[in-house]
């Protein structure tokens, strides 16, 4: 009897192991035929799409994204497994890791620059041409000329709204200090003088977490030490790993030294080396700090969280220095929707993924995401009912005389991570600006 029982238990255990092992098999079986067949049957049954975007956390467009997902689910009967998060270097690393470990989503909203190259070159996403071969109307509402081109010459992502980076100012702080809202001719010297006045009046001039989000200031500091035309030039190292002392290196070094000067003058928050971005943005929002460099995505954050004091915030201009005018800014269309090879090769998910991207990038839905940003829509976006802050952003953008992409988007994630992690070492004097640039570029 005991022997029989033991045998039975072993059998049950063995069967359960076999069952576990087979659970992944149907997906593999279903994926296999589609690789060889062109005619994929449209999905009859509702499917669940795994979607990852940067519309998570406190993103200003979170609610618009949720509404768009809901309307997609209602229209198609499909379900969306939303794995969205806030965009930062850690999130980017996680997305890339997911691709490398085979756990990528079906649809990904991600950066279209060098950050996407690892999964594009690995063939893990489907090109727009390949999708159009089966779905000729895919992304035809977009201007092809504004779609990002990968290093292999193909286009993969359907662009969403663009972005701009500029300086937000808190009018209530400026008023309390007797300072005018900066205009498009704002200079670095005026800025330094204003910062000192603000500091003397008991406010923090610049809301910025140098340990978490130094990249906006770095970007403009580089432009202030160069020009719009050469913003995207990146320093290089020689065969021995030594930094080549050229114009690109010089402007990066000067940019880091500018940040060091601002830090030493006490214009950043006292806890800038331990504060999170959320803390410093809250300082600005609460009327404790005067200036904040951030992107178009931050407008929604203020609209949602500071509705009562929205009139206090204005989008202004980052002070200009040298050849750069304050009316020159960072901007472009840097993100778009990718359909992964995994979803494309799954007959059940192919159509659902195409429908999802088409829905999210339709004129009607995309217009809800847009206030002042550029889009690639052929017919243009039709935002409605701009509030005071959005109107100020639109006004500032109207005075912009030049826009260029962010240089940090052209270097590898490893180099970028190293550079920004070392900014705290530069401002505290533990490392020279030259050492920080060389250390980062060695990883590029």
């Amino acid at each position: 009897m005991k022997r029989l029982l033991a045998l039975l238990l072993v059998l049950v255990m063995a069967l359960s192991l076999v069952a576990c092992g087979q659970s992944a098999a149907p997906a593999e079986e279903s994926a296999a035929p589609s690789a060889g067949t062109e005619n994929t049957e449209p999905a009859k049954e509702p499917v669940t799409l795994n979607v990852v975007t940067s519309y998570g956390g406190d993103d200003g467009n979170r609610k618009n994204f949720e509404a768009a997902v809901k309307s997609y689910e209602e229209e198609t009967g499909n379900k969306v497994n939303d794995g969205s998060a806030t965009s930062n270097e850690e999130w980017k690393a996680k997305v890339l890791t997911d691709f490398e470990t085979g756990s990528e989503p079906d649809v990904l909203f991600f950066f279209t620059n060098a950050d996407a190259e690892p999964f594009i070159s690995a063939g893990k996403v489907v090109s727009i041409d390949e999708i159009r071969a089966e779905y000729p109307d895919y992304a035809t509402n977009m201007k092809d000329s504004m779609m990002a081109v990968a290093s292999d010459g193909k286009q993969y992502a359907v662009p969403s709204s663009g972005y701009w980076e500029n300086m937000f100012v808190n009018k209530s702080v400026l008023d309390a200090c007797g300072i005018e809202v900066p205009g498009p001719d704002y200079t670095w010297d005026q800025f330094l003088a204003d910062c000192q006045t603000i500091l003397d009046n008991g406010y923090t001039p610049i809301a910025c977490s140098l340990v978490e989000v130094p990249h906006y200031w770095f970007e403009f500091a580089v432009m202030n030490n160069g020009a719009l035309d050469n913003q995207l030039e990146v320093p290089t190292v020689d065969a021995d790993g030594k930094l080549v002392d050229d114009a690109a290196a010089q402007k990066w070094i000067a940019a880091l030294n500018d940040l060091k000067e601002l830090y030493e003058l006490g214009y950043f928050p006292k806890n800038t080396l331990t504060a999170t971005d959320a803390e410093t943005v809250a300082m600005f929002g609460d009327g404790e700090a005067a200036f904040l460099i951030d992107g178009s995505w931050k407008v929604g954050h203020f609209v949602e969280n500071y509705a009562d004091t929205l009139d206090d915030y204005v989008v202004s201009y980052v002070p200009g220095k040298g050849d750069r005018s304050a009316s020159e800014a960072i901007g472009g269309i840097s993100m778009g929707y990718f359909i992964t090879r995994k979803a494309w090769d799954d007959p059940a998910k192919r159509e659902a993924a195409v429908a999802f991207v088409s829905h999210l990038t339709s004129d009607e839905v995309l217009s809800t995401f847009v206030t002042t940003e550029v889009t690639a829509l052929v017919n243009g976006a039709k935002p409605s009912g701009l509030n005071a802050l959005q109107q100020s952003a639109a006004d500032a953008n109207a005075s912009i005389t030049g826009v260029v992409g962010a240089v940090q988007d052209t270097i590898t994630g490893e180099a970028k991570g190293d550079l920004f992690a070392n900014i705290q070492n530069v401002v505290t004097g533990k490392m020279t600006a030259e050492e920080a640039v060389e250390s980062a570029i060695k990883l590029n």
Partner: protein
Amino acid sequence: MNSMIYKKKTPLLLFLIPAFLFLAVYLYYPFFQNVLNTFMSIGGLGRAAEGWNDPWYENYQRLFTDPYMRTAMKNTLLLIVCTVVFQVGIALILALLVDTIRVGAKFFRVVYFFPIVISATALGLMFNLIFLYKGGMVNQLLLALNQLPYEVKSNGKVIVEWLDWKDQAHFLFTMFMPVLWQNVGFYFVIIVTGLNNIPQDIYEAAALDGADGWRRTRYISLPLLRNVLCTCLVLAITGALKVFDLPWVMFGAGMPENQGWLTGTYMYDQTFNKMNVDYGSTIAVVIVVLGVVLSNVANRVFKPSEDI
């Protein structure tokens, strides 16, 4: 009946094999692969190795020259000491106190154990609010008690000198305190169980001999808890080496100014953020070696008594 089971080894083996296979595939194979990875150049998770390092022990060489690794080791060893002294120490005191009371013992057992069931991430976020720079609970309390200096500007604006609990002067306390607090309950439960296993008649005999509470604790409870405490020490040491989630949520990548690294957070940062997988693997090996060595040392120093 028993003798029959032990004579026939085949069923025993059959039952052991699935668990062994599971461990072999998901623990031992990755571990040995991880050791191999330390000698290779790997530029990202899931990416194929680009070849052997030159020299092959490059990562181990770097361990000794990397200032952040030195910081991580120093902080981790300090955390181990604090864990042993405060976590196990406080757990022991609480367990001895709870063991002596008759009413409310169950209540205190639940209360002290409760932090264990809360996720470390949630605790990290909670302590972030407690130690927040402006408007955090501790700073508000200090302000209410007039313990924070302030200055009144000519325009009437009051500038409070908030205490930065994450700066270089305070970060160790801010980082260690929640970690220690969270796990006291774990050791508390182990020690309370050990105390419950001590036969009551020994205490009764001691009481008849006139031993007071302190003597009963000193000469009965503590000696008979030796093996339990030894287990707690080994668990505390290996546990402290693995601490990651709570400090990561509160301090991220080495805050403040790269002084806040622990071996766990530094390994994660190198592997997942810096994409330096081979060096991250090397740090992982260090963590394992340290765990084995330190727990062996603890076992030898506080050798479990076979008489108990």
